[in-house]
């Protein structure tokens, strides 16, 4: 009983930070309709800045209060800059474009901090007294109560602002109906800006008070965004008190789960350690239960312009494109030096992952972040098949793909009624759960190390990275595995292109455009969605076993939460509605051909790659809200139309000349 109380009270600490960030998430959403993934990253910046100002990093040491003031001002600055430079230009873009842009901000901030402060984590200076309280005969650090008190006071203050001030009224009005608010003379840009100020200040404060449970490093505080998003979703991205209560609830729940894992009845894995990742699993399960109980649609904002995904043109010249692509691929695999060859093979895998997003997000409009996790499922199945049962190529990959489809169907079926951004948040929580509970577990995944995969061979031919044919430079990896990958990519590209041309693909686009009208046209919406989940999971599973064979092992780190987000970004930038977009997405994916080129030619590496990647992500989204492939397609269409018009004009003039 005492222990129970102890862990509930200890959970107040994490609960406070989750609640505070959740509050900032809801404030941002109400102010501008943006789901900002970078809010945890602002807390991270604040934590680093607070450390730096208190420890002579910049050549001066400030006292606690002035340091707090400077930190809050810098957090606000970060928020304002991202509002002005990133979100305002994207005002009328699709929610997905905004999500991708906020990921760009997150990566940029992470890279900046790493470059500035180095990779060693810093101790955030303590702002609370170090007292220990005795409650029910247990010792509890007083700072947990201080943290909770700060968050509760801030929440009440924010609540009061929204309840009683003119600004609060205006925000409530505008978040209910933006058009009516404009007619009342309220400027959406101004409201969005003030709310951003508030949210960034709040995020900054969380970075300061997190000292007792987190250090200033590049991930801990950033990742608090996941449980915070879950809490915000509980609150329907609307209710401030529910977001705060849910935040505390998740923190305490996780603490209790940790307590349970110390008890004897708790299931263990090899080595007698308790199963890992049960805390993430708990968050995910709570979220799914909550959504199924109260429905999932977020309130609409009554906006002026309906924001749609980019158009998905019908692909043409399939055979020609496939032949050209295949020929270039074969030549490059043979000719390129080994570094570029490896990058090309990773790009091919990236293309497959992007293709799976083209089907589920581009064609059906479901923003699923689970695709990378499904790839992981397939990869681990391939590894376990060979390690535990001695089954290798091609049966391992087949089983892997099937496992991907099964998990994908479970995700799809449980998310049938969840749409849009809610779906993105649920699948994000799912990714973290699968990563921590599944992949990082010794029982199902690989623990902290990788799980080995034997190289593939078929009918006595070695198809792996160590096959005897080594390309022009004679080095590893062998192009042979690349040929296998290339064949897979071409086959899947053709499949996805065929889907777009088929009645099934047209049904998918009809569902994406308007579920109600699709049902009125006799389309079984649920069936179309499930079919799309199955196909897209199959494709993601294929990427999973490609990874496994490429690296000769699988590890949880390859299929984590940030990778999942990054792939949505790559697919979106490339062009999430087109096969050619997936190809571009694969080329720019992490460690792919384009980043490798940057690294080799410009000497950009490590954290600089991260920084440049984040900035390019932001710039590309703003320049091409429809993706690179989409922009190219539109330009070509426009010039075709202009040419046709010119032809008509010439013809008319010629005719006039004849007569």
């Amino acid at each position, binding site marked *: 009983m005492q222990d129970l109380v102890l862990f509930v009270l200890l959970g107040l600490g994490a609960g406070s930070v989750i609640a505070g960030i959740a509050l900032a998430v809801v404030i941002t959403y109400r102010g501008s309709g943006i789901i900002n993934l970078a809010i945890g990253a602002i807390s991270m910046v604040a934590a680093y800045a607070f450390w730096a100002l208190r420890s002579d990093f910049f050549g001066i040491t400030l006292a606690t209060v002035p340091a707090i003031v400077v930190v809050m001002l810098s957090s606000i600055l970060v928020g304002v800059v991202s509002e002005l430079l990133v979100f305002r230009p994207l005002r009328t873009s699709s929610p997905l474009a905004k999500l991708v842009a906020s990921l760009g901000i997150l990566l940029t901030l992470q890279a900046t901090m790493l470059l500035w402060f180095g990779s060693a984590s810093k101790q955030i200076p303590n702002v609370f007294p170090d007292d220990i309280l005795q409650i029910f005969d247990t010792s509890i650090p007083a700072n947990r109560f201080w943290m909770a008190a700060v968050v509760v006071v801030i929440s009440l203050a924010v609540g009061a602002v929204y309840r009683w001030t*003119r600004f609060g009224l205006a925000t*409530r*009005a505008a978040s*209910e109906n933006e*058009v*009516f608010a404009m*007619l*009342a*003379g309220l400027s959406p840009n101004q409201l969005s800006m003030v709310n951003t100020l508030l949210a960034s200040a709040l995020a900054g404060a969380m970075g300061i008070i997190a000292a007792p449970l987190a250090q200033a490093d590049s991930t801990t505080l950033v990742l608090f965004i996941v449980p915070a998003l879950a809490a915000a979703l509980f609150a329907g991205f609307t209710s401030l008190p529910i977001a705060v209560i849910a935040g505390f609830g998740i923190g305490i729940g996780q603490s209790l789960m940790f307590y349970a894992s110390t008890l004897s009845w708790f299931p263990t894995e090899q080595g007698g350690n308790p199963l890992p990742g049960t805390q993430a699993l708990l968050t995910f399960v709570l979220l799914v239960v909550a959504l199924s109980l109260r429905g999932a649609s977020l309130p609409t904002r009554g906006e002026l312009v309906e924001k749609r995904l980019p158009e998905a043109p019908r692909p043409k010249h399939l055979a020609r494109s496939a032949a050209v692509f295949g020929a270039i691929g074969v030549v490059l695999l043979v000719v390129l030096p080994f570094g570029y060859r490896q990058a090309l093979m990773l790009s091919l895998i990236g293309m497959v992952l992007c293709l799976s997003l083209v089907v589920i997000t581009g064609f059906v409009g479901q923003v699923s972040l689970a695709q990378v996790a499904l790839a992981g499922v397939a990869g681990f199945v391939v590894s376990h098949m060979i390690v535990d049962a001695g089954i290798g190529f091609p049966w391992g990959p087949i089983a892997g793909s099937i496992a991907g489809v099964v998990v994908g169907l479970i995700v799809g079926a449980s998310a049938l009624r969840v749409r849009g951004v809610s779906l993105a948040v649920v699948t994000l929580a799912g990714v973290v759960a699968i990563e921590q509970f599944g992949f990082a577990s010794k029982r199902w995944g690989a623990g902290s190390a990788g799980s080995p995969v034997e190289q593939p061979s078929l009918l006595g031919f070695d198809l792996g990275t160590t096959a005897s044919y080594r390309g022009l430079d004679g080095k590893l990896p062998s192009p042979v595995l690349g040929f296998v990958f290339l064949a897979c990519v071409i086959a899947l590209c053709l499949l996805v292109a065929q889907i777009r041309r088929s009645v099934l693909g047209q049904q998918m686009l009809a569902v994406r455009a308007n579920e109600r009208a699709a049902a009125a046209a006799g389309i079984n919406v649920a069936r179309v969605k499930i079919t799309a989940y199955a196909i897209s999971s199959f494709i993601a599973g294929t990427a999973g076993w490609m990874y496994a064979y490429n690296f000769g092992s699988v590890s949880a780190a390859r299929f984590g939460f940030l990778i999942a987000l990054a792939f949505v970004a790559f697919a979106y930038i490339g062009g999430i509605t087109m096969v050619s977009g997936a190809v571009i997405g694969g080329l720019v994916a992490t460690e792919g051909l384009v980043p490798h080129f940057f690294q080799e030619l410009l000497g950009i590496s490590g954290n600089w790659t991260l920084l440049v990647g984040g900035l390019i992500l932001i710039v590309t989204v703003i320049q091409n809200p429809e993706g690179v492939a989409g922009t190219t397609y539109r330009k070509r269409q426009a010039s075709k139309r202009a040419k046709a018009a010119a032809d008509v004009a010439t013809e008319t003039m010629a005719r006039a000349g004849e007569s």
Partner: protein
Amino acid sequence: MATEPTLQLEKLSAGYDAAAVVRELDLYVNPGEVVAMLGPNGAGKTTTLRAISGLLRPMNGVIRIDGIDIASKPPAARARDGIAHVPEGRGVFFGLTVAEHFRLGHRGEQLDVDAAYDHFPALAAIKDRRAGLLSGGEQQMLTLGRALARRPRLLLLDELSLGLAPVIVERLLPVVSTYAKESGCAVLLVEQHIHIALAVADRAYVLSHGEVIIHESAEKLRGDHQLILSGYLGEQETTATVSD
């Protein structure tokens, strides 16, 4: 010298997705005048109001307020300049109470709450209730009360009667015409119940398929039932279609 019209539309064309719903519309409203815009659904009345308040960018033509072209102003700026647009449906925020509706405003704006409660005493009694819990008539009273409390110089009213018994609107509209006469506010109102609209209007335009087909004084139209019936119920078109 004749006074300058508060609102003047010159050859206004507007619509959605490059398809014009309103074509080359000329229309004016003088200060203190109540002008009705009538016509069947899809005739372009709502589109016209949306273009005036800035929710829709016109394809062509000029919109002048007190002689000044307002093309470059966003909707919020037009609202601050004294254009009050009461949109179709219920222009209220369901989550806000009645009293909060009167506190809501842009910077420096002070709504004349007392005037609103004077116009609609019933509102004062329910001032702490959320707008979402009010009846349709009360909501419409609130919308109108809020618009008047802003002391606009141009009031645009879109189908106040939608989903309401006509008798409720018959009670709301006279408040508008009284206000217009007293304050010099120009009123452009769209209404499907012709009789109610003509009872308070000084002049009326009848639109059909995006064009003005009748422009007459309300008095003349009140007297000439056949004219309005033919313009509105499409009696002439009917004969045309049947004989086709």
